[in-house]
């Protein structure tokens, strides 16, 4: 006999009054689950001057929001937040507690798990519901993924029956679906004085600049560009796709681009995606690109038989001056369409 | 890959640690030091931290006590990656061996611990402009006055010159006694009257400093003299007999490194639709190289063990053979390795050309190949004359 409260709880992580994007995606995912299991979706929001943000959680699927608005929650302290959450969980006893996969989430969640001997899982990407026809008993299992030794492992994990289930969920597409007219309950909770004392003191905090460019995606240009104007296209594509630019030796020697962008034996890169435009793929250049099973190489070249077309994941045969502008156009088109789609539901 | 030479656990530890240092600390910087012709002080510090500076120094003076074998294994492993930086340790060993072999307890206690810990480097001061192969022709004098000697003269081609703190220097104390008129002195950097000349510009081993030692009325106490007066030539010859395996190890290491580059290249380089390693011409070259490298290694390890065991009274023939064979082999192997890399081997982008340049010195210093042959022949004649 299970004396858990049939509710799905989601921890709403926030920093300086701004709710983390992973929470919104998590709410979307758990909303679907809550509908299937016919359980209310509850979120916990801890912070200072945070109450006004509770609505943001409701319009994204929360039925109930527990808000603790207190100056003690102003900056994050692992032990303070863990203790507050723990008290709440111990008094209400929800069955399922979800966290977004953030450094903070992964710090508090295990602390809670150890205190009440819950089952805790990380790297979850999907929920699976099993219905046993004999007993008509619902069982939920969690699909997790992990990259180990260059291989991707997909594991299905379950948690023991009478234990609280704590699951850390990996962000995926960062989709944010909003229903402006959704309603829900906001419940204020109060701390008793001297309840939570932290043993940790914050001395200084540095917030990093959000960079748009990531070296996870590199758009690289070679001799096939023909002239320095080709790099204008390369830069545009890099901007559209959210990556940085690179070059092989010929364009650098011909002074079409600075040698800061040269990729080769002496400047090795390890991007997730490498887009080689007008590059033939000679050993001298490709030595500079770390390629493993997961690397995606996209090659755009007139010559279908050159070396890079053999190793590319997606080999595009054609004139890059025609193809790259079309790709940029298509990416922009899809982006505006995506925003439109959000308001459709 | 290498034949099992039944090394002890301590010896395997030396190789393992040397390998780590070579890959993690030397390899990323070898090109830099070669191009800039700078002395690798930072890497010397890493050697010191890993206890690699005193492999051949007895335990009681702070070393590992692994003998010549320990030195050989260390130098070989380091030279697989870079034949020039490791030279700072090999040349220190050359400068230190006179103290180990002929020093009195006071001298050993004074100098060996700092060398073992890597705090100080040493150098061997024998060669002069007019005395290369012809060692007895040295002109540096050590004139005795009371308890001191005044040293005047110029030494040249001294490895570690200028960067070492401790120098074992050979000077003539008696011009009438010919070869028996040479003595050996331990002189420290900073001694009044002891300066350094220009740094030589070399074809290879560029990160190693090669300088002149200039002695101008350099006053040295008689306690700084190694062994008795007139013992100089004996000290020099005994030292060289013990140190030749070190040069051989350098040559062997460079050859091994070059061979590995060649075989790696041959596997990935494709011409006429196939990797070049599938061509018999290349395969035969590789087979020849691998065989001579292994033969050299066997000779070297056996010689080192024989020296350490002290089971043989005379080792000059064997150590000369080892130096002769390994150095000549290294010059051949680096040449052929470059041949396998073809045009690419000529480019500074690939490490082969440096290995080729570094290997070249091994047949020239610490006794040219011709001197080694003289030594071997002299021993053969002596051995067979009694039969």
């Amino acid at each position, binding site marked *: 006999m299970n004396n858990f409260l049939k509710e799905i709880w989601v921890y709403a992580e926030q920093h300086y009054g701004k709710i*983390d994007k992973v929470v919104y995606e998590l709410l979307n995912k758990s909303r679907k689950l809550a509908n299937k299991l016919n359980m209310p979706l509850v979120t916990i929001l801890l912070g200072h001057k945070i109450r006004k943000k509770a609505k943001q959680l409701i319009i994204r699927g929360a039925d109930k929001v527990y808000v603790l608005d207190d100056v003690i929650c102003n900056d994050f302290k*692992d*032990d303070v937040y863990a203790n507050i959450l723990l008290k709440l969980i111990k008094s209400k006893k929800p069955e399922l507690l979800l966290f977004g996969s*953030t*450094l*903070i989430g*992964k710090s508090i969640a*295990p*602390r809670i798990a*150890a205190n009440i*001997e819950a*089952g805790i899982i990380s*790297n979850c990407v999907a929920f699976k519901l099993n219905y046993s026809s004999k007993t008509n008993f619902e069982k939920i299992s969690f699909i997790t993924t*992990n990259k180990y*030794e260059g*291989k991707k492992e*997909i*594991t*299905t994990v*379950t*948690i*023991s029956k009478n234990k609280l289930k704590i699951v850390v969920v990996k962000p995926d*597409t960062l989709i944010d679906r909003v229903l402006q007219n959704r309603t829900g309950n906001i419940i204020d909770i109060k701390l008793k004085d001297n309840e939570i004392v932290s*043993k*940790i*003191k*914050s*001395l*200084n*905090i*540095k*917030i*990093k600049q959000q960079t748009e460019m990531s070296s996870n995606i590199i758009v690289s240009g070679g001799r096939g560009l023909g002239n320095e104007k080709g790099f204008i296209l390369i830069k545009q594509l890099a901007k559209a796709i959210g990556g940085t630019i690179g070059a092989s030796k010929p364009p650098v020697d011909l002074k079409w681009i600075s040698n800061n962008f040269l990729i080769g034996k002496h400047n090795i890169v390890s991007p997730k*995606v490498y887009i080689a435009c007008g590059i033939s793929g000679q050993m001298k250049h490709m030595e500079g690109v770390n390629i493993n*099973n997961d690397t*995606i190489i996209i090659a755009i070249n007139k010559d*279908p038989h050159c070396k890079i077309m053999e190793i590319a994941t*997606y*080999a595009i*045969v054609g*004139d890059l001056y025609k*193809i790259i502008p*079309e*790709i940029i*156009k298509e990416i922009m088109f*899809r982006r505006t369409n995506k925003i439109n789609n959000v308001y459709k539901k | 890959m290498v034949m099992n030479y039944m090394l002890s*656990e*301590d010896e395997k*530890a*030396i190789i*393992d*640690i040397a*390998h*780590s*240092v070579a890959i993690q*600390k030397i390899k990323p910087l070898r090109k830099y030091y070669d191009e800039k012709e700078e002395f690798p002080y930072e890497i010397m510090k890493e050697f010191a*931290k*890993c*206890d690699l500076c005193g*492999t051949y120094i007895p335990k009681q003076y702070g070393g590992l006590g692994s003998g010549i074998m320990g030195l050989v294994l260390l130098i070989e492993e380091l030279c697989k990656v870079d034949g020039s930086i490791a030279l700072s340790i090999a040349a220190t060993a050359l400068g230190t061996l006179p103290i180990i072999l002929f020093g009195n307890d006071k001298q050993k206690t004074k100098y060996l611990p700092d060398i073992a810990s890597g705090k100080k480097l040493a150098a061997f001061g024998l060669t002069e402009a007019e005395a290369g192969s012809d060692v007895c022709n040295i002109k540096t004098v050590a004139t005795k006055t009371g308890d001191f000697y005044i040293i005047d003269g110029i030494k040249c081609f001294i490895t570690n010159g200028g960067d070492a703190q401790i120098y074992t220097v050979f000077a003539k104390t008696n011009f009438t006694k010919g070869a028996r008129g040479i003595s050996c002195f331990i002189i420290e950097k900073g001694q009044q009257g002891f300066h350094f000349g220009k740094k030589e510009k070399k074809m290879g081993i560029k990160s190693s400093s090669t300088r002149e030692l200039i002695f101008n009325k350099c006053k040295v106490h008689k306690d700084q003299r190694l062994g008795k007066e007139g013992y100089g030539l004996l000290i020099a010859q005994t030292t060289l007999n013990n140190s030749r395996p070190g040069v051989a190890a350098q040559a062997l290491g460079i050859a091994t490194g070059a061979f590995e580059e060649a075989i790696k290249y041959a596997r990935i380089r494709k011409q006429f639709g196939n990797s070049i390693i599938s061509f018999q011409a290349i395969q035969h070259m590789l087979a020849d190289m691998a065989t001579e490298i292994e033969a050299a290694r066997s000779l070297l390890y056996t010689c080192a063990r024989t020296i350490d065991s002290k089971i043989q009274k005379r080792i000059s023939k064997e150590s000369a053979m080892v130096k002769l064979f390994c150095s000549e082999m290294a010059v051949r192997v680096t040449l052929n390795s470059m041949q396998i890399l073809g045009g690419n081997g000529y480019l500074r982008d690939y490490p082969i050309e440096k290995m080729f340049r570094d290997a070249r010195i091994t047949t020239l210093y610490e006794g040219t190949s011709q001197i080694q042959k003289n030594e071997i022949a002299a021993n053969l004649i002596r051995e067979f004359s009694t039969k």
Partner: protein
Amino acid sequence: MNIIVCIKQIINSIINQESNNKRYGLNPFDEYALEESLKVKDMLKAKIIVITMGTPDAEFILRYSISKGVDEAILLTDNAFKGSDTLATAYTLFKAIKLINNYNLILCGKQSPNGNTGFVGPELAEMLNIPHITCVKRIKSINNTVVIVDRLLDIGSEVLESKLPVLLTITKGDNISRLVSVKGRILARKASIKIWDMKFLNMESNRTGSLGSNTHISKKDENNKQKNKEIFTGNASSIAVKIVDKLLENKII
């Protein structure tokens, strides 16, 4: 200062540079933790004990740690430990640390590659009832009462001060792991390792192994398919549509 470092062995598919042991190696994050503990020992008088829960092969990483300069090594091994989830593992380490009793600082690697959870550290801290800080890039300073660290946040980084005892999980910082010295290697070979089993730790069998685990793996699949190579030809705008589909499919944009 008494420091405990919790480490874990991983299966190496590449030859470990440090030795010819091809099968096992040390979790890279634990390597950072080890280096931090040695840096503290460089700064002030400290004793470092390293513990691992694993198979008897895990002795390798313990000896490796000794070669770097830790003072004592303890191996927790028992067939009953097999199948432990993070909580059961943390509990086992907890029992061992309780036996050691004397500690000011506990260091763990941020996470280990075969689970990538990063849970054991915080769980252990909770059981020991001490504070914890995750994702520490480096220990800035330490004395007998407090430690100041630089830790990573999703939004940047933060400098925190904590009272001792505290548990820190260590992530990659600017530190380069020190090399092993020959004397260290020889010492490690001769060192004696303490081996503790479930009985020695006075543990109930239902708190460890699969019996003591609340999470259970029901299925494990490997997905190492080679990405299918595709060639695109034809008119530029149709290529663009197809390739952007692929970009979306692979979650590149």
